[in-house]
């Protein structure tokens, strides 16, 4: 398989209430291993997946929040957050986890690949992708 496609994972669900966020993250990890160009988009309640300070000790479920912070190591290069969804929930970029990215070969690095974008940019990014995964 030589083809490389631009994969966009469209995340619109909050974590824990349902399993969608966690199981879609499992697909992201596999897709990156297939050397595809993987980007994530967080829209609607999907922005809650990235909030800092998640602690699941009281609900007996696995806290998968730390996994998002490792996505840079899986060569995920872009994580986009829809600005309108974020603002509608009284959140800002400061409330979200930061994800570092580094190219091990060139040592090029980015401190935080989580980027807040406006509606027009979200539409463009979705449109430019080759495949949109929805969960």
């Amino acid at each position, binding site marked *: 398989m030589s083809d490389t496609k631009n994969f966009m994972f469209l995340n619109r669900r909050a974590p824990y209430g349902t399993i969608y966020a966690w199981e879609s993250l499992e697909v992201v990890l596999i897709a990156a291993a297939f050397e595809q160009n993987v980007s994530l988009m967080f829209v609607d309640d999907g922005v809650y997946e990235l909030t800092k300070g998640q602690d699941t000790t009281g609900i007996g479920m696995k806290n998968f929040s730390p996994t998002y912070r490792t996505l840079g190591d899986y060569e995920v290069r872009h994580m986009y957050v829809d600005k309108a969804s974020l603002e509608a929930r009284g959140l800002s970029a400061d409330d979200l986890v930061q994800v570092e990215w580094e190219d091990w070969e060139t040592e090029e690095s980015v401190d935080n690949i989580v980027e807040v974008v406006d509606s027009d940019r979200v*539409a463009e990014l979705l449109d430019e992708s080759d495949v949109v995964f*929805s969960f």
Partner: protein
Amino acid sequence: MSDLHTVNKSPFEKNSLESCLRLSKSGSAILLYEDGVYGALKGTAVENMIASVVGDRKIYVLGPDYKARGLDETRIIDGVEVVDYAGFVDLVEANDKVQAWV
């Protein structure tokens, strides 16, 4: 070329249609199916969501889902086209890709 967006949620239950309309490009196609068909009706509190974009987007509604829910075709918003499953397949083929607003 543009994308086909699919919406299967009632606009009264979830904001999928609202997000789809906000985040889809001008000229794209939108198919309302399953409970999404309720968004295609005239005379509802949310009628304007679809009515205001007819012309800018191509809006389709899946006939079998519409009929299953006992809805009369005369209630479909003007400019919305009814398709069957074969038409759904044609829309997927004719557009670049599918964005599912599940």
